[in-house]
């Protein structure tokens, strides 16, 4: 469904990612692992179109989207739930969700999607008119995911969903991930938390300083010694 | 404490060569062009003095007309109204300006003003100061003050106008640019940049923000006031609408920014290019269509900014890379 070939990307002319190739099949949950500064966020931003690739191709649903703008990608259904949630703090939960369904494709479906999201996260329903900035970290993460779902995501990319959450909330969020997987959503899980990701993803890629060090089924990655190496930076 | 780079600059034949060459210009130029260069040097000095706060520590002060006005109007009033020698007036005015600067720095720190609040509060101070000056008889009111003729008596702070004034301004401008170089090569410069880039982080690593900001503001205010006194002596007419109006600060900030903010030679470069451009445009076109020269000047400013959005100095460095290495890069 989403394919990346030979991607090179970075900031201000300095490449951070070198020759990345990866693939997401329909309905799959794929983990993207790596230590800090391995280039995970740069990669996910390249997929969202925030960072323009210097070389390589990104193919979505058989279409080359390498040069597509962030807006066009959202329109196609490539949705990012950014690291640190980045909810709009001065807007209510409802408004945040409405903005999630801002793109032309999702806009007519907003009432229906809203119902779905609120069914998935009953907590949000109670807080609908509360400013997002007053929510707890876990609730904000729910909102961020809910906001991503509002766009009728076809690929949902979650950037560090466990970051800064209590273990209980982490459990909850990954429970949601499993449920979404069951519903057939294609997902890219970008995580630092190795074991957690390996438990919830079918396949994984391990990034190490800008290139893919290990790839394969979760079990394979788990047992590959290079995975630990990539993490420890050895 | 000051880094070797500063002394290298001091010993640089380039620096003194340019200054000496500049000093010889009035010998070959007519009195009109000498005058234009004198004005340009006034703005070099003012923009460089402003740069110490506006460029280095990132406090965009629009209150500098307060310091210029203090240096100019106060020393002029002391001379005209009380007969106080202008050298003494210069010192009194500079001390007053330094005190005003310290107060403004303290207010900024005490009330933790944001960027834009600081800009606007200093603008409000400047507006109030100009209203007070225009309404206060001692400072000449709206009519201003006429100084006695400049007969070249050095003891009375007179330099004989023309070339004399040019050399005084050249000296002042050189000193202030060198003060910029010195600060950038000293712990103060380092602290100021740290504060500019992240005040909280600076505080966290133990920088005394109040002291560093105050030091910068006081140095800037004192230097600005001295230039104000020298400028009014040259003009002979202390005009409140010029010397105590926020408009002059806006011009200074324009030169400093277009030249290259926070750099030692940037503001000087901006003033040296833009002031003569404005003067010559006005001289050539002022009699033609009213406003045409300003119109073109405005377009030039826009084009320059769009062409080199980080300032003229970086552009010049790119163009004359070899030569700029002779002058220590700051």
């Amino acid at each position, binding site marked *: 469904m989403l394919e990346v070939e030979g991607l090179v990307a970075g900031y201000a002319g300095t490449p951070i990612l070198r020759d990345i190739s990866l693939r997401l099949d329909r309905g799959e949950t794929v983990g993207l692992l790596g230590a800090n500064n391995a280039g995970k966020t740069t990669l996910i931003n390249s997929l*969202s179109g925030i960072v323009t690739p210097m070389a390589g191709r990104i193919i979505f649903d058989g279409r080359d989207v390498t040069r597509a703008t962030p807006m066009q990608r959202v329109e196609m259904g490539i949705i990012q739930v950014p690291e640190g949630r980045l909810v*709009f703090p*001065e*807007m209510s939960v409802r408004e945040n969700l409405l903005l999630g369904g801002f*793109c032309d494709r999702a806009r007519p479906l907003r009432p229906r999607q809203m119902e779905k999201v609120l069914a998935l996260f009953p907590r949000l329903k109670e807080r609908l008119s509360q400013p997002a900035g007053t929510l707890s970290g876990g609730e904000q993460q729910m909102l961020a995911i809910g906001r991503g779902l509002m766009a009728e995501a076809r690929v949902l990319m979650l950037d560090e969903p466990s970051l800064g959450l209590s273990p209980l909330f982490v459990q909850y969020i990954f429970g949601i991930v499993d449920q979404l997987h069951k519903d057939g959503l294609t997902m890219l899980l970008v995580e630092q938390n190795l074991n957690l990701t390996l438990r919830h993803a079918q396949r994984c890629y391990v990034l190490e300083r800008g290139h893919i060090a290990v790839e394969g089924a979760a079990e394979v990655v788990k047992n590959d010694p290079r995975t630990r190496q990539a993490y420890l930076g050895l | 404490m000051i880094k070797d780079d500063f002394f290298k600059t001091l010993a640089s034949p380039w620096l003194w060569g340019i200054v000496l060459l500049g000093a010889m210009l009035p010998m070959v130029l007519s009195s009109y062009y000498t005058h234009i260069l004198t004005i340009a040097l006034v703005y070099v000095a003012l923009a460089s003095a402003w740069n110490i706060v506006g460029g280095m520590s990132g406090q965009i002060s629009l209150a500098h007309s307060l310091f210029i006005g203090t240096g100019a109007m106060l020393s002029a009033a002391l001379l005209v109204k009380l007969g106080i020698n202008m050298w003494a007036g210069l010192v009194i005015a500079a001390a007053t300006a330094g005190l005003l600067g310290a107060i403004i720095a303290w207010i900024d720190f005490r*009330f933790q003003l944001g960027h*834009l609040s600081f800009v606007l509060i200093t603008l409000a101070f400047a507006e109030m100061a100009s209203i007070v000056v225009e309404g206060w008889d001692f400072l000449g009111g709206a009519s201003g003050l006429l100084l006695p003729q400049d007969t070249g008596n050095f003891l009375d702070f007179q330099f004989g106008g023309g070339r004399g004034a040019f050399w005084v301004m050249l000296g002042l401008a050189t000193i202030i640019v060198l003060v910029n170089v010195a600060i950038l090569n000293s712990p103060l410069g380092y602290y100021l940049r740290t504060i500019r880039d992240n005040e909280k982080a600076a505080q966290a690593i133990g920088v005394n923000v109040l002291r560093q900001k105050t030091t910068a503001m006081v140095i800037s205010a004192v230097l600005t006031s001295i230039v104000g006194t020298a400028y009014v002596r040259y003009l002979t007419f202390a005009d409140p609408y010029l010397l105590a109006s926020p408009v002059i600060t806006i011009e200074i900030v324009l030169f400093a920014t277009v030249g290259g903010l926070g750099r030692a030679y940037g503001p000087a470069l901006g003033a040296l290019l833009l002031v003569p451009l404005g003067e010559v445009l006005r001289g050539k076109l002022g009699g033609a269509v009213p*406003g045409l020269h300003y119109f073109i000047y405005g377009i030039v400013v826009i084009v320059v900014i769009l062409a080199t*959005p980080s300032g003229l100095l970086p552009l010049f460095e790119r163009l004359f890379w070899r030569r700029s290495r002779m002058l220590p890069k700051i």
Partner: protein
Amino acid sequence: MSELWQALAQGVFIGSTYGLLALGMGLVYGVSGVVNFAHGDFISLAMFMCLALFSAFSLDPYVSVLITIPVMTAIGALVYRFLLRPMVGYKFLMVVQLTLGLSLVLQNGILMIFGGQPARTPSIVESKLIILGDVVLRLAHVIACAVAFAMAIGLYVMLRSTDFGRSIRAVHQNAHAAALMGIDVGRVQVMTFALGIGILAVAAALLLPGTPIQPTQGLQYTVITLLVVVLGGMTNFVGIMLGGLVIGISEAMGTVYVSDTLGRLVPYAIFVLIMLFRPQGLTWRAS
């Protein structure tokens, strides 16, 4: 006592137009971080457009506004697209200087076309008075005040409950996240700048009756607008209208009750005091 009411009325009317002038600037600042020093000159531009329309077609400013709104909006969009957008990412102050250059161009362009003498644009309401006992109100003022508040409310509602409004607020609160929602940040910035300039067309028509205009007036409008915007807390429309009222009323009170030229100090002094003790502006919620 009637003087107090009269002064208060004057302050409210002037203040509400200040607020109206400032709404556009607050909007633009919130979305693209631009402090536009040519703001006042855009007001001038709109006013002189009304004058030109009167000279050519005898149009009343209240009618001309139908033409000046789209024209000013288009000018705003072009200015943002071709002058300000290339500056995104460079120093804040450099952008300010660019708008100063623009101010020189606008002011002197107007001077070249219209000359420097004060000019009047007649309007049907310019000589209409409403007399309430000792207090005399100008119809033009009353209309201006009403429209100013109506527009402030309209903008508020637009920001709250339309998708366009929400996208503006999203860009203001987090441009990166807004892009991830599929919002075209650049387009939102162009449109808000255009809207901010378009509002000035309305303000210009409201201010015109009974006000002689000159090309040089721009900077004074800019300074007042800046004070009001900062006082209002930059992006909060309620705060901005309030800021306008504070400046307008203190200006009127200062002139009426403080003798000599010192009366002019009052609005600035009040501004400084408020800013020192409420640095985030007049809005009550701390940021």
